[in-house]
């Protein structure tokens, strides 16, 4: 699994790719939780871009739960965006779609995070959706 990170104004976008399973969830935890702590510290927002995630297991979902707790405790916001159809079903079956805000696209997630985040994203050359 590969994990990329980008900053758009007050919003951190974390983009894991591949499978988040029993083997790789520890990598996600090691990468994500410090980022969530930082974002929570400055009361920013965290967006998880899941467009490149093929699968997530219960262990991976637990990591998201911990990150969500961190963010909420600091009045920060967290959302997950661009789920594949399989991952969207896993979220629904596990009821994680009730735990985390799920946005259809990264644009939607950034718009919900802050106007500044969306503007920075667009300024970086990311086109608005057609």
């Amino acid at each position, binding site marked *: 699994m590969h994990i990329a990170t980008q900053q758009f104004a007050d919003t951190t976008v974390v983009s894991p790719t591949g499978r988040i399973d029993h083997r790789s969830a520890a990598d996600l935890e090691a990468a994500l939780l410090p980022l969530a702590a930082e974002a929570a510290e400055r009361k920013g927002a965290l967006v998880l871009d899941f467009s490149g995630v093929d*699968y997530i297991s*219960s*262990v991976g979902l*637990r990591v998201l739960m911990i990150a969500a707790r961190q963010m909420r405790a600091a009045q920060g916001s967290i959302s997950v965006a661009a789920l594949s159809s399989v991952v969207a079903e*896993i979220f629904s079956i596990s*009821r*994680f779609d009730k735990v985390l805000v799920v946005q259809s696209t990264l644009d939607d997630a950034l718009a919900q995070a802050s106007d500044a985040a969306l503007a920075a994203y667009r300024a970086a050359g990311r086109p608005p959706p057609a």
Partner: protein
Amino acid sequence: MKGVRFWGTRGSLPVALTAAGLGHKLREVLRAARGQPLDSDADIEALLQRLPFALAGTYGGHSSCVQIDTGGADFLVCDMGSGLRPLGQAAMAQRGGKPQTFHVFMSHLHWDHIMGLPFFVPAFIPGNRVVIYGSHRELESALRRQQQPPSFPVDFDTIFEGRVEFVHLEPGVPSSVAGVEVTTMLQRHTGDSYGYRFESQGKVLVYSTDSEHPLADPAHTERFVGFFRDADLVIFDAMYSLADAISVKADWGHSSNVVGVELCQLAGARRLCLYHHEPVFDDAAIEAMLAETRRLEEITRGAQPLQVSAAYDGLEIAL
């Protein structure tokens, strides 16, 4: 082992279908019957077969009790929830005047798993034997205590007259009971619970209820994958959704359908049976959980398919 029969499948406490719940089912069934041929009993039966189980049947409300059919004369039973009472009635009906022996394996000693014993009629019959196995040191004292005043009108010795015996099972050490190899394993639950792995004639059955799975502990996962390895059937505590099990109901000692699928897939098990249903769930909710669990298995399937069922009072599964 030939198979299992579920006598009680509900978690925490027994429940019953209410008048409102039955009324809802009847209305839905009558709506489904509009315009359908109903002239003969065969027509009616055909209609009922087409209806969802949540409408034409019910998952039932007795608390934990599962019978293992070994093909032998002795009865093997997991847990003594309220489902033990109808099991006892069925055993009495097939007794034919001959003494009967019941081997009962206890996951743990919470009320919903022990409440059936004072109502287990075969234990009142001279000549019968009830041998209760478990890994808790308090096994005997807990069962005696529930029949002490003011909780029950007749005490243990008066009602059972020495027909009930106790056998301690050391976790991880296989024992042979009625031709079946039995191994217990410690599970995470308040006051501890134990899972059972039964092996006989090339068949493997795992009974794992009231068991929480800490997802952050790979060693725990490996232990359970080994315990479930190549099982023909895993009876699994799937009381909560995953989100509930690791958030608002964390440390309540139960698990989820999602973790059940994952552990069975990792272990190469062939069939998963969702068990210890949340008592607030109605039949439609359990049926929806079953459909979702089957879908999860489908979209995450590896080399080997995993058959998924939801236990109901009266369900029989062949091994």
